[in-house]
């Protein structure tokens, strides 16, 4: 039972069943880890912003470096017009990063390994970016699907491809994060199972592999959060600076 590598992704209710009009919104282990990640983020960044020193302490340095990291990322991809969306991108990056990282703790639940969570985030970003695009450029935002310098014969095909690629953005964005998280955690579980089943004699090889995988997964946890945030910035850039 515990050796099933998919078992770790099970969602189960914690506490009583909460229902509003037949809709189940019970507090689950997924909810628990969302709350924990949010609290950890708030604690870390609150500690980092409490003391106002000229020469920052450890927590202050952490908070300020993260701040500058995200603001530089937005500035590089979306330009100065992306500044109003800084807090959203910052929260998004931190939320995904902390969910990924907390998922690396043993017995922890990885919130971002569920397609529904990543898809809701991606869909929200997609809808938000589309709305921003139409607000900023009106119907001119549809020019995004018509690249300049394309022969007229090819234009219908290109427009269809562009529309499909635009519509598949939330899917690719959500599936990328979800699949990376799920695959990584499943692999770690599988190799952990190998260590147990092969025992003292043959268990060392999968154990060493498992150690290496842990390092890789921590890298992936950071990288996927970064990719998620930077793709959001790129989509935002399309909406803000229409340059097709």
């Amino acid at each position, binding site marked *: *039972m515990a*050796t*099933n*590598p*998919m078992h770790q*992704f*099970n*969602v189960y*209710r914690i506490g009583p069943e909460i229902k509003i009009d037949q*809709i*189940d*919104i*019970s*507090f*689950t282990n*997924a*909810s628990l880890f*969302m*709350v924990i*990640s*949010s609290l950890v*983020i*708030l604690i870390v*960044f*609150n500690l*980092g*912003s*409490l003391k*106002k020193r*000229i020469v*920052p302490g450890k927590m*202050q340095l952490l*908070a*300020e470096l993260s*701040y*500058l990291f995200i603001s530089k990322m937005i500035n590089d991809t979306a330009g100065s017009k992306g500044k109003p969306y*800084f*807090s*959203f991108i*910052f*929260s998004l990056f*931190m*939320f995904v990063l902390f969910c990924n990282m907390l998922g690396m703790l043993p017995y922890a639940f990885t*919130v971002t*390994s*569920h*397609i*529904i*969570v990543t898809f*809701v*985030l991606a869909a929200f970003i997609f809808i938000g970016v589309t709305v921003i695009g139409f607000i900023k450029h009106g119907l001119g935002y549809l020019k995004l699907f018509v690249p300049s310098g394309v022969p007229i014969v090819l234009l219908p095909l290109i427009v269809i491809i562009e529309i499909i690629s635009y519509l598949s953005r939330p899917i690719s964005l959500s599936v990328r994060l*979800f699949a990376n998280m*799920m*695959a*990584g955690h*499943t*692999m770690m579980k*599988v190799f952990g*199972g190998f260590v147990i089943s092969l025992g003292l004699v043959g268990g060392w090889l999968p154990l060493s592999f498992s150690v290496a995988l842990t390092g890789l997964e921590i890298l992936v946890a950071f990288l996927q959060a970064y990719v998620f945030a930077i793709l959001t910035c790129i989509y935002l850039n399309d909406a803000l600076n229409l340059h097709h």
Partner: protein
Amino acid sequence: MHKRLILYLFILSLTFFKNVNGAESEGMPQLNPEFWVSQIFWLILTFGSLFIILSKFVLPKISNNLEMRKSQILENIETAEKQKIESENKIKEYETLINNSKNEARNYFNEARKKIIQDIDQKREKIEKDINQEIQNAEKEIIELKKSSPEKINKIATETSIHLIKQLIGEEINNSSISAIVEDLSRKNKEKNYGN
């Protein structure tokens, strides 16, 4: 390559454990819609509150900190530059003061040297005058002595010669004849004996 490997291992592991726990496996729990609404609800709640708290309370503080540091550093640089200019002015003042005092010291020194040199010159002139007078006096005396000395020598010479002749011959000879001879000789030898 890497993704394909992961996918392959993933599929392999799925089939492996399907065989082991075939009875219990339910596929991917992610695709079970039982708790989807709950997850969406809690995601919106937690992420929304996280976003609101971060954007309203935490991030402004951090950006304030950063801006405050920037402005404070700029201020510090400005004051540092002001103080640098001030200190440079002070150094200039100090250098001019030192130059002035050096010049004054040089002037004092020169004046003192002039005074001393004048003093020394005066004293030397006095001493030289005195010495010259002394030398003149001494020269006068020497000249007088020179003048008088041949006569005396002649007298002594005549007297001794008279005595010598008396003892040699036993006769008294006329004073005047001997003195004539002596004077004659002294005149002849004058250049040899008394020449400088």
